[in-house]
């Protein structure tokens, strides 16, 4: 360092001499600015390498892309270790490369040799994002906007994204951080059709959660896209979102793990759809089969069997499915003599409410349905389903695949629905 300082004094002396004939005041100011910059760079370097257990980086490749959390330890030897577990680094891994603080019209943090966990976001050949030549187009050089003992505010040099860097707790295991991230991520699994954002009692629907970019249908014009990042505690929108006069950005996972509550405003929360909403939404891609062993439907099912038996048929499948414009109860039967199967459909309108779900029978229009509805047991079955039910998930609130439906007017009438492809 001694040689450096010598050179520096020599240089700044030279600058002084050269510029003394121009404007002395300005060159004096420039010199002290340069000194300040050098001090800031040295200080940032010291702060970053002082955290033995590293830092959390909330990284956004571009302003339109979702965020990714990275754990980074800056060794004073010049090596940065970066841990990641995400869509582009699917297995938990720690990769290494060099880091440096440089002067690029201000203090800039750079990762200047290849470090897989970070540079995968910048690699034009990564195969992600916009494909060969572009990739995810992220930064690996960051302008330091603000620095403290506990937190840095960074800006991506090319893309201008806002990136937070904050001290990771001393005692916490790196691996367990990603386990916590996973818990929050459960709310964004691909089986969940949408989430609700409730602010001051009014609700908007959030779709696309599994891609970590929410789509919000607003009353006016186009849907709004909100990229967000999943952390160990909850989520943070890339930019604040304002609805119903309230601005929200950061949400914390509830204790039961089923909802997210806004940090800024306790009356804002993100919740799972109700089981009845889940049922209706998933009908578009999946079928819900009536469990014929349900005790609350035993008598009726028995007489359906008897009716089919009388015409040498057995029941193969009894399920609700989506027919694009309506919901159908589909009844598939098989001939005991020939093995040939046939199907009949009975239409219902379904309407999820706050307390449950209303089914209203709308008749049948195919020949299969026309034959079946004349058999014994069928009119009882169709009538039993023409009612209002209380609906509950049996196995999981995050991904319900078994639901119980209980007639609100007659609790002895109930049955189980099981999801199938």
């Amino acid at each position, binding site marked *: 360092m001694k040689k450096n300082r010598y*050179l520096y004094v020599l240089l700044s002396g030279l600058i002084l001499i050269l510029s003394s004939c121009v404007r002395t005041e300005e060159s004096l100011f420039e010199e002290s600015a340069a000194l300040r910059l050098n001090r800031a760079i040295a200080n940032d370097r010291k702060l970053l390498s002082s955290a033995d257990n590293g830092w959390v980086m909330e990284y956004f490749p571009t302003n339109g892309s979702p965020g990714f959390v990275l754990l980074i330890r800056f060794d004073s030897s010049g090596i940065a270790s970066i841990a990641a577990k995400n869509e582009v680094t699917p297995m938990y891994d720690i990769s290494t490369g060099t880091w440096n603080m440089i002067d*690029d019209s201000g203090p800039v943090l750079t990762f200047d*040799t290849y470090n897989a966990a970070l540079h995968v976001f*910048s*690699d034009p050949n990564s195969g992600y994002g916009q494909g060969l030549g572009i990739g995810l187009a992220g930064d*690996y050089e960051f302008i330091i906007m603000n620095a403290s003992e506990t937190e840095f505010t960074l800006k991506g040099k*090319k893309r201008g994204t806002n990136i937070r860097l904050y001290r990771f707790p001393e005692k916490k295991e790196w691996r367990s951080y990603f386990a916590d991230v996973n818990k929050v991520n459960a709310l964004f699994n691909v089986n969940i059709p949408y989430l609700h954002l409730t602010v001051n009692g009014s609700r908007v629907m959030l779709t696309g959660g599994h891609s970590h970019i929410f789509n919000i249908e607003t009353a006016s014009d186009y849907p709004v896209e909100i990229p967000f990042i999943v952390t160990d505690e909850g989520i943070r929108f890339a930019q604040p979102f304002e609805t119903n006069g309230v601005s929200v950005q950061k949400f914390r996972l509830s204790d039961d793990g089923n909802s997210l509550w806004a940090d800024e405003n306790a009356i804002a929360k993100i919740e799972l759809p109700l089981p009845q909403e889940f049922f209706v939404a998933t009908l578009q891609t999946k079928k819900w089969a009536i469990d014929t062993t349900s005790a609350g439907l035993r008598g009726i099912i028995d007489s359906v069997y008897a009716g089919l038996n009388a015409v040498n048929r057995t029941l193969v499948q009894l399920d609700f499915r989506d027919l694009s414009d309506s919901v159908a109860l589909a009844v598939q039967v098989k001939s005991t003599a020939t093995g040939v199967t046939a199907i009949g459909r009975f239409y219902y309108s379904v309407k999820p409410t706050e307390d449950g779900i209303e089914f209203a029978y709308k008749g049948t229009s195919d020949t299969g349905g026309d034959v079946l509805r004349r058999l014994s047991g069928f009119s009882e079955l169709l009538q039993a389903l023409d009612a209002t039910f209380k609906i509950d998930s049996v196995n999981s609130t995050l991904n319900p695949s078994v639901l119980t439906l209980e007639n609100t007017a007659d609790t002895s009438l109930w049955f189980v629905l099981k999801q199938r492809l």
Partner: protein
Amino acid sequence: MTSVILETLKKEYKLTNYEYSLMRKNSKIWLLIWTAALFSACVRFEDSFTDSIFVDEPELDPASELYPFDRWLEENYLKPYNLDFRYRMQDKGSDMDYNLVPAKLENSLEMAILVKHLWFEAYNDVAGPDFLKQHGPRIIHLIGSAAYKPALQTMVLGTAEAGIKITLYNCNELNPKNIDLLNEYYFETMHHEFAHILHQKKTYPKEFETFSAGYYDPSYWQERTDSEAASLGFASPYGSSQPREDFVEIIANYIVKDSVWWTDRLRMASQSGVNRDGQVVDDPLDGQEIIEAKIDMCRKWLKESWDLDLDSLRRNVTKRQLQIDSALIEGYKKIDEYKNEQL
């Protein structure tokens, strides 16, 4: 002390079969473009080894993990050639329009050893130790990825700026076992750019431009096949873009391509050219005779102007290509030895 102003240099290559097969996996055809020299028109290159252009070279920190490698670079590049071997990427020193990534550290080590072995030491052996000290580049900058131009379906693999800085792209694809790719991506580029530096200091004979006069085409060269180019007396399609590219392509290909390649190229040159559509394109030139005459002229010019023996250089490079493994082992050993200074 003389000073020269170096003009814009450009080197482009059409896709090779190997690269084509690599690119085909992405079902896209990428033309490879080696381009060069940006702002060089206003850069003055002081032709003196003693003038350092690195005024604030930071002192090496023995506590750093990188110390052994940095020390090795100091001993093998900075001290002998006043050359800054930049393996740590700074985007202010590269083109902001591209999406790029830094080179992997392990690849940078390999590249540094290989550039020394295959390039610097080859010229040292043949032209003496002062030759590159005086005329060689002052900065080598390594980039991990290629610089893609998705809109044009092209990519830049190497640039040279003002004869001072050579940038080598795609270093994360470095594979010392694949000589052809080593040459195509890195070493032929270096010979190409260096030949430009030499002919800008001492012009090549005007007569060189007469052999294939009337067949240079700066905007159509990439449409020409190897066969068409050869039958017109060019070492490569890019050589047919303009005379000075022709001149350096003859030299660079002569140095790095083996006799199998050259036998094939000269056979191609002796026959009529076949274009992309498989049609025979007739021309009145004897390609083989022209290429041989061009090589002769390059050989003579290098000898008379630079006291550089082209055939010795070629033999030396060929020999060195067979010693890559031992050069790497030796290089790593030397780098490792600097760890002792850290204790």
